[in-house]
């Protein structure tokens, strides 16, 4: 029987979520390592050095892939939390819509920061 809560949580996303949570995690771990190496390379937080790094298209792309992974990862993780703790389907749906809206806004904001300056 399809109950209202069943309609809200959907189905068949388990394997895809499990895999995407791990793939995005590995991407973020690699980027973290890259930033750590750059931090040592630049010898700290010097504006000119970091501006130079961020101005390179390759690093911007890497940063964008990191942020996309982060936002996707956050969606899977936050939805795991809403599925565990928010039982009324209407409340869960409202919170999840709010989370999606925030994540989409963050994605736009990321693009603006990375490529908005020209």
């Amino acid at each position, binding site marked *: 029987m399809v109950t209202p809560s069943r309609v809200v949580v959907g189905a068949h996303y388990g394997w895809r979520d499990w895999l995407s949570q*791990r793939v995005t*995690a*590995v991407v*973020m*771990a690699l980027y*973290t390592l890259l930033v750590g190496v750059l931090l040592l390379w630049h010898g700290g*937080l010097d*504006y000119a050095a*970091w*501006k130079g790094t*961020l101005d390179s298209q390759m690093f911007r792309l890497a940063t964008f892939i990191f942020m996309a992974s*982060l*936002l996707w990862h*956050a969606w899977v*993780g*936050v939805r*795991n*939390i809403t599925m565990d703790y928010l039982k009324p389907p209407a409340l869960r749906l409202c919170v999840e819509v709010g989370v999606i809206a925030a994540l989409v806004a*963050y994605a736009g*904001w*990321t693009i*603006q*920061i990375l490529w908005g*300056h020209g």
Partner: protein
Amino acid sequence: MAALDRPVVKPRPVYLNLFAIRLPLPGFVSILHRASGALLFLIGIPLLLCVAQRAYGSADGWAQVRGAFANPLVKLLAIVLAWAYLHHLLAGIRHVIMDLHIGIELPAARQSAALVFVLAILLTIVVAVRLW
């Protein structure tokens, strides 16, 4: 069949007293994984974007952000978020390793949980020392 033959049905749902539960160490690391993830979503991501926008925008913005870190409350927040990131990262690495069926026996799982917990705190101390 008489009703008396059936086992007594326990009242459901069961409400757990969270403060009476003593979590084993792997469970403790696991709930901190979730809590740190929630913290990173609620505060970490928006703050990261705010700071990145200001700092990347201009040399003045960069200096402003660096100046903000003189405030002890900002330092404290940065240290809490650094711990959340490090704990989440290390607990996640442990998770993926266990997905590969490595270290899933109880003694090994307890040891790796302790390692994640301690290592995250030690690395956070390194960050805190660098900040202060």
